[in-house]
C-alpha cells in the first residue's frame, strides 16, 4: 500500500506545482467598499509600475473581512489592505490595546507568528469607525461628543452596517461603553447609509472617518471621548512566502508608507463616490501627482465633472468591454450551475419518485437549503472548499437550483396517468424502459418548467457571486451599491434582468414545443 501511495503523493505534488499560480503573479484582494477598492488598485498600480510582477484583480470586492483573511491564509490571495483595529479585534480576538504603534506592533508580530503574513508599514490614514450625525442636529442639541447622545438616544434611529452591528468594536461594545440604547438600529448597506442619514430616515450612522461623504453631506463626526474605537491604521498585508520570493514588493510599496492622510483618503473616496471618476483613473492621477510633486489630488478637474453628469449612457459606453466580459462570466456561472443542477436534480427526482418514502426528507432538505441566505451560503461554501471563485459560487447556485428541478421532476412523474403506466407494464416494459420511454418523456414539460424557474433564480443569485470573487454582473451591482452609484448598479442589474427574461422565454419556447409535440 505504501509503495502505491508514495508515487501518488509525488504525482499530486507535481500536479500541484504545475497548476499553481505562476509565481510572478500577485493576487490582490479587497473588501467590498470603495476605500478598499481604491487601496487595492493603488497597490496594484504600484506593483505594475515598479516591478515585473503581473497583478490579478479577480479578487476585488470580496464580501467581508472574514473572507479576505481566510483567503489570504489559505493561499487563495496574496495581498490585501487590512486595518490594525480589525485585525486585532476580529481576527486575533484581542481587546484593550490602544495607541496606533502598540496595536500595529502587536498585530504584525501575531500575524507573522500565526499566519506567516507580513504587515507592511501603515499607509498613513486611520480609517476608524466614527459616529456621525447631521450637523444641524449637532448644532441644535449641542452634540460634540458621543457621550452627548446618551439622553437623546432613546428617540434616535441608527443606521449601521451589518459588520458594525456584529463586531465587538461596533454597536455591542459602543452601547456598553457609552450606555447608549437607540430607539432602533437598522442594518444597512454601507453605500445607502449616508443617504439615509441625509434624508432623515435615520439620525445616527457609523461612518468611516475617511469617507468623503461625511464632508460632502455636511455631517458632523462626534468625538470618541471615551476612546472606544481602536485605531484602524490601514496597511497592506502580504503572504510571507511571497514576500520572501519577491522582496521587490516591499520596495515597490515603500513609498506608500505614511503618504495618505485622512483628508487625502476622503478626497480620493469622494472623487469616486460623488464625482463618478473611475477608480483606476483616481489612482493614476494620485500616483502621477506624487511623482510630479504636485502633492494633492485635484478632484475638481473638468474631466471628472463630466464623467458623472453624462449618466447611464456614458457609463454604458465606458464599461462596454467590461460589460461584455461580465455578461459572459455571468452566463458561464449560470450555465455551469444549471448543467450540474439538471444532472443531479432530475435523477434525484426520479429516485424520490421510485422510493416514495424518501420524498419528504429529500424535498425537506432542498427546501431548507432554499432558506439559507445566499451570502451566508457563499461564505460557508468558501470555508468548506477553502478556495475562492467559481467553484464555491457554482456549488451555491446548484444547491439553490435543485429544489425546483427535483420537485418538478417528482411532480411530473407523479402526474403521469396510471392507465399509461399500466399500459407500459402491460406491454412488457421493464421499469427502466418504462422510465425512459414513457414516464420521463411525459413528465418532460413539467421538468423543463422546473428548469426554467431554477434558471431565473440562478441568474439572480449569481449576482452575489461577486462577494467571493467569482465575477459576473454582480461586480457592477456591488460596486454601485458601495458608491451609492445608481447607474453602476443598473449596469449590472439591468443586463441580469434581461438575461433572466430571455432565458425564461427561451426555455418557455422549448416547453411549449415539448407540450405540443
Amino acid at each position, binding site marked *: 500500500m505504501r509503495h502505491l501511495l508514495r508515487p501518488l503523493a509525488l504525482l499530486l505534488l507535481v500536479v500541484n506545482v504545475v497548476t499553481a499560480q505562476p509565481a510572478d503573479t500577485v493576487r490582490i484582494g479587497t473588501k467590498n467598499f470603495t476605500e478598499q477598492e481604491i487601496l487595492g488598485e493603488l497597490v496594484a498600480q504600484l506593483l505594475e509600475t515598479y516591478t515585473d510582477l503581473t497583478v490579478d484583480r479577480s479578487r476585488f470586492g470580496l464580501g467581508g473581512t472574514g473572507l479576505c483573511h481566510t483567503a489570504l491564509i489559505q493561499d487563495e490571495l496574496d495581498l490585501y489592505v487590512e486595518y490594525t483595529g480589525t485585525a486585532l479585534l476580529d481576527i486575533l480576538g484581542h481587546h484593550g490595546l490602544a495607541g496606533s504603534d502598540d496595536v500595529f506592533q502587536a498585530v504584525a508580530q501575531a500575524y507573522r507568528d500565526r499566519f506567516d503574513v507580513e504587515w507592511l508599514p501603515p499607509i498613513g490614514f486611520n480609517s476608524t469607525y466614527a459616529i456621525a450625525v447631521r450637523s444641524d442636529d449637532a448644532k441644535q442639541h449641542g452634540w460634540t461628543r458621543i457621550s452627548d447622545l446618551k439622553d437623546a438616544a432613546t428617540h434616535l434611529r441608527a443606521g449601521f452596517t451589518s459588520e458594525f452591528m456584529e463586531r465587538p468594536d461596533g454597536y455591542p461594545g459602543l452601547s456598553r461603553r457609552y450606555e447608549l440604547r437607540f430607539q432602533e438600529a437598522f442594518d444597512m448597506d454601507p453605500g445607502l447609509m449616508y443617504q439615509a442619514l441625509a434624508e432623515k430616515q435615520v439620525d445616527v450612522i457609523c461612518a468611516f472617518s475617511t469617507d468623503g461623504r461625511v464632508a460632502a453631506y455636511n455631517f458632523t463626526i462626534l468625538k470618541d471621548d471615551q476612546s472606544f474605537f481602536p485605531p484602524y491604521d490601514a496597511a497592506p498585508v502580504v503572504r510571507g512566502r511571497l514576500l520572501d520570493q519577491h522582496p521587490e514588493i516591499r520596495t515597490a510599496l515603500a513609498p506608500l508608507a505614511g503618504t495618505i492622510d485622512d483628508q487625502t483618503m476622503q478626497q480620493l473616496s469622494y472623487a469616486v463616490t460623488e464625482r463618478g471618476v473611475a477608480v483606476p483613473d483616481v489612482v493614476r492621477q494620485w500616483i502621477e501627482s506624487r511623482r510630479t510633486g504636485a502633492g494633492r489630488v485635484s478632484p475638481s478637474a473638468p474631466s471628472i465633472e463630466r464623467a458623472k453628469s453624462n449618466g447611464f449612457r456614458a457609463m454604458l459606453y465606458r464599461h462596454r468591454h467590461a460589460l461584455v466580459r461580465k455578461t459572459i462570466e455571468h452566463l458561464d456561472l449560470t450555465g455551469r450551475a444549471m448543467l450540474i443542477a439538471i444532472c443531479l436534480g432530475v435523477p434525484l427526482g426520479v429516485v424520490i419518485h421510485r422510493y416514495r418514502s424518501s420524498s419528504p426528507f429529500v424535498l425537506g432538505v432542498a427546501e431548507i437549503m432554499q432558506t439559507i441566505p445566499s451570502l451566508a451560503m457563499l461564505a460557508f461554501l468558501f470555508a468548506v472548499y477553502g478556495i475562492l471563485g467559481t467553484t464555491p459560487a457554482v456549488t451555491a447556485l446548484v444547491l439553490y437550483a435543485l429544489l425546483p428541478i427535483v420537485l418538478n421532476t417528482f411532480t411530473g412523474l407523479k402526474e403521469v396517468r396510471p392507465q399509461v403506466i399500466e399500459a407500459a407494464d*402491460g*406491454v*412488457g416494459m421493464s421499469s427502466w424502459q418504462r422510465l425512459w420511454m414513457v414516464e420521463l418523456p*411525459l413528465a418532460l414539460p413539467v421538468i423543463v418548467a422546473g428548469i426554467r424557474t431554477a434558471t431565473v433564480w440562478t441568474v439572480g443569485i449569481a449576482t452575489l457571486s461577486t462577494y467571493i470573487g467569482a465575477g459576473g454582473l454582480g461586480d457592477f451591482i456591488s460596486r454601485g451599491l458601495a458608491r451609492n452609484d445608481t447607474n453602476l448598479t443598473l449596469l449590472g442589474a439591468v443586463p441580469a434582468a434581461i438575461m433572466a427574461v430571455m432565458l425564461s422565454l427561451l426555455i418557455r419556447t422549448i416547453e411549449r414545443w415539448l407540450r405540443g409535440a
Partner: protein
Amino acid sequence: MIVLRHVVKSFDNLHSFAVQDVSLEIQGGETVVLLGSSGCGKTTTLKMINRLIELTSGQIEIDGRNISDIPLLQLRRSIGYVFQGIGLFPHMTVEENVAIVPRLLRWSRQQRRQRAHELLELVELEPGQFAHRYPRHLSGGQQQRVGVARALATDPAYLLMDEPFGALDALTRDTLQKEILAIKKRLQKTIIFVTHDIFEALTLADRIAVMHEGRLQQVGTGSEILKQPATPFVSELFAKPAQQLAVLSEEQG
C-alpha cells in the same frame, strides 16, 4: 390453453376477496368472455393472467407452464393486451404505439414499420393517413383500433381484452365487435374478453364465464346459460335479454 386453478386474490390480507376460488380452462382458439357487473373480479382475474396483478393463491398455467415460472417481461410481451379506456402512449405516434412491443423485442426499424402498417390495415386504419398521428387526434373508436393493432403486433397466441369498447358509442362498438370476430376467424387467436355488456358477451363469446362477487357463477355457451341459468344471480342477469330473445323468436316464428 390457459388454465386457472383455484385462483384467489385478496388485496387486504385475506380480510376480503376480489377473486375467490376461480377455476377455468380456456382452450386454444376459443373466445371466453368474463361477464359481470363492476367490482365482480373479472378485470382482476384478467390482470392476474399476465401478472399485472399477482395472485394470492392458486395457480395459472399457459400451455402447461406455470406463469410464475415464466420471466415476467417475456410473459407480458408474449400476450397481447388491450386496455380499458385509453391505454395508448400519448407522446408516441400511432405507428410507434403499434410497434412498441416489437421495439422492446429489438426488431429493426424497417421490420417494425412494416409490421405496424400491416396491422393498421388489418384494423382498417389507412397507414398513410394515420401512422404519424398522435392518439389525441383520433376518435375513440380509432384509438381502440390502434389498441387492438398494438396487442396483435407480435402475433401473440393469446389476447386479453379488458372492456376495450366500454367507452364507445353503440354503433362504433358494433363495428369493432364485428371486426374482432373477423380478426379472430382469420388469425385463430385465443381471446379472453372482459365486459359487463351481456349483448357484447353473447356476440363475441364461444363460452361465457359469469362472475359475481369474486366467484364464478356459471360457465357455458350463451344458449346454455340462457336456457339453464345455474344460480339466481345468473337468471336475473339474463332475464331481460332472454325476454327480448323470446319476443324476437316469437315474431320470427
